[in-house]
């Protein structure tokens, strides 16, 4: 129960995975390992909406998680959605080990703008912190600059900082210390 796994769902740019490896190692007191990419079966695709069902991705990730998983973060380029909502930047099990982040709407290209690697990296890190925050029991924060604030639009992702606010940060520190047997 002590490894932080990162797994690509479908094909994902390797530099993004590298950024997230580094970021995860910085934030979480677990060794970070990469799992072989998951293939996306046709059944996950909703042709009418031209999107992928996030619920299926989450299910597959949970099934993939090795025994010693502390947290498992899926990363995907495809556009995720659930039946009720037009899209998701990511999804997580509240207090569970699995989360997923979609890069699709974090890319400037999605909005018809030229690619911007620096911005993509920032956004991906924010969304990773956000979804992982949920896996440690955090719910949305009312502080707009906190990584845990709810972003329903890309502008709101950009408003966030790449960190938790003091209160959410304290919660994370407590949970991480407990997860790591109190050694930090």
């Amino acid at each position: 129960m002590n490894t932080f796994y990162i797994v690509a769902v479908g094909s994902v740019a390797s530099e993004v995975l590298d950024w997230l490896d580094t970021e995860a190692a910085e934030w979480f007191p677990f060794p970070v390992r990469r799992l072989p990419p998951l293939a996306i079966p046709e059944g996950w695709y909703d042709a009418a909406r031209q999107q992928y069902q996030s619920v299926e991705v989450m299910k597959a990730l949970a099934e993939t998680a090795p025994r010693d998983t502390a947290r498992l973060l899926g990363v995907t380029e495809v556009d995720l959605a659930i039946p009720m909502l037009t899209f998701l930047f990511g999804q997580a099990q509240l207090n569970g080990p699995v989360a997923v982040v979609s890069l699709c709407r974090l890319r400037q290209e999605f909005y018809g703008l030229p690619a911007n690697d620096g911005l993509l990296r920032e956004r991906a890190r924010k969304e990773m912190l956000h979804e992982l925050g949920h896996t440690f029991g955090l719910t949305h924060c009312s502080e707009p600059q906190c990584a845990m604030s709810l972003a329903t639009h890309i502008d709101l992702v950009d408003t966030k900082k790449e960190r938790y606010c003091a209160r959410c940060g304290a919660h994370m520190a407590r949970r991480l210390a407990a997860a790591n047997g109190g050694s930090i």
Partner: protein
Amino acid sequence: MKGVWPILIVDDEEVMCESMAAWLREDGYRVDTAPNGRRALELAKSTDYAIYFVDLKMPGGMDGIETMIEIRRARPDAAIIIITAYATVDTAIQAMKEGAQEYIVKPCNPQEISLLVSRILKLKKLQRENAILRKKITRQYRHRDVVTKNPRMEEILALAQEVASLRSTVLIRGESGTGKELVARAIHYSGDRADKPFITVSCAALSETLLESELFGYEKGAFTGANAQTKGKFELADSGTIFLDEIGDISPKLQADLLRVLQERRFYRVGGGEEIQVDARVIAATNKDLAEEVQQGRFRDDLYYRVNVIEIRIPPLRERREDIPLLAEHFVERIGHELGKDIGGIAEDALKLFIEYDWPGNVRELQNVIERAIVTCHNGMLGESDFAWLEQRLGSHEPWKVPDVPLSELERRAIIAALERKQGNVKEAATALGIDRSTLYDKLKRYEITR
């Protein structure tokens, strides 16, 4: 905090229920799900959900609209959002007619749902706060909370109870600070209008034109600055009670308008042509002798008889001195609690001082005196020393020493003191000074005393 507002999602598709529930849980809400209307109803009976998301199309017995109707039967205040994949105007209209709060087409923009939920919860919060405050107010103004053991006061309270559920106009007379509004509220809150509004208007505080628009409201453009149609206090008090404080101070024109409302239960807004009907119980109060005002031609006799259907006269505190210790203890306890100070009580010597004092400002003055003492008190018990300033006002403990000043200065001070004692009432002050009113006016002018 959001955990106190549970949400129920009703949909036959498990994926839809669970994914939406997960998303709302990330926002901190407690979310339950139900696969059909029957289960939803069971859950609704045991939990008071703040919001229900109900899918319009569900197979089996109950569809979304039926489920909504049943939920509303069990929970009339339920906020229900109807969800559908098919946006048809007909079903939307039907859903709204049956009382849905909102109607959304899935898939829905996350921002829209997030705003919708917070908007509904804001309203729920206000409703809950309102209910709590209303409870607080009614509790505060029940009859038994009027502190007294004076037989005349007890008679008054019994009368108030008797007339509470009648529609008859009540006139409450009493000096300022005797608790006229308290009695008016006690009447309102023990009658069958208790859950309806109780609206207070202080007639003395406003000029004629302001009071007119305050009472009757006005139409947009009725006068400069009338930017929007505004309801008056009579309309706001519809089906409840309107309390007209200091009714003896209103102008002849408004007296005529008021008479019309009392007689016909209808009126026009200022600048308006549409007649408005109201059912408001009127309770009026005055510290003047209205019969005297009628004789002097300052108050219309027909209005007087309309208002004075049931008369309640509240005695001044000095006529019910036996209530002073009771009231004092009551205020010490209440104000101490409000100010967060632990005050043990009032010492005998202070109570003796209280009983001797005449309390021209009546119960309100007593309350203020005690509040002031509690603020400055440091040893947990209010004694005579905490009211030293009151003793000076009482002034009976030491023989009066004539100050070394000119006679005119003595006269000036005597006039000011008399006016203060009579709260600026020139007629009463003149009587107290043993001179007639016109003489007093001359002297006010000479000494440049403003009332």
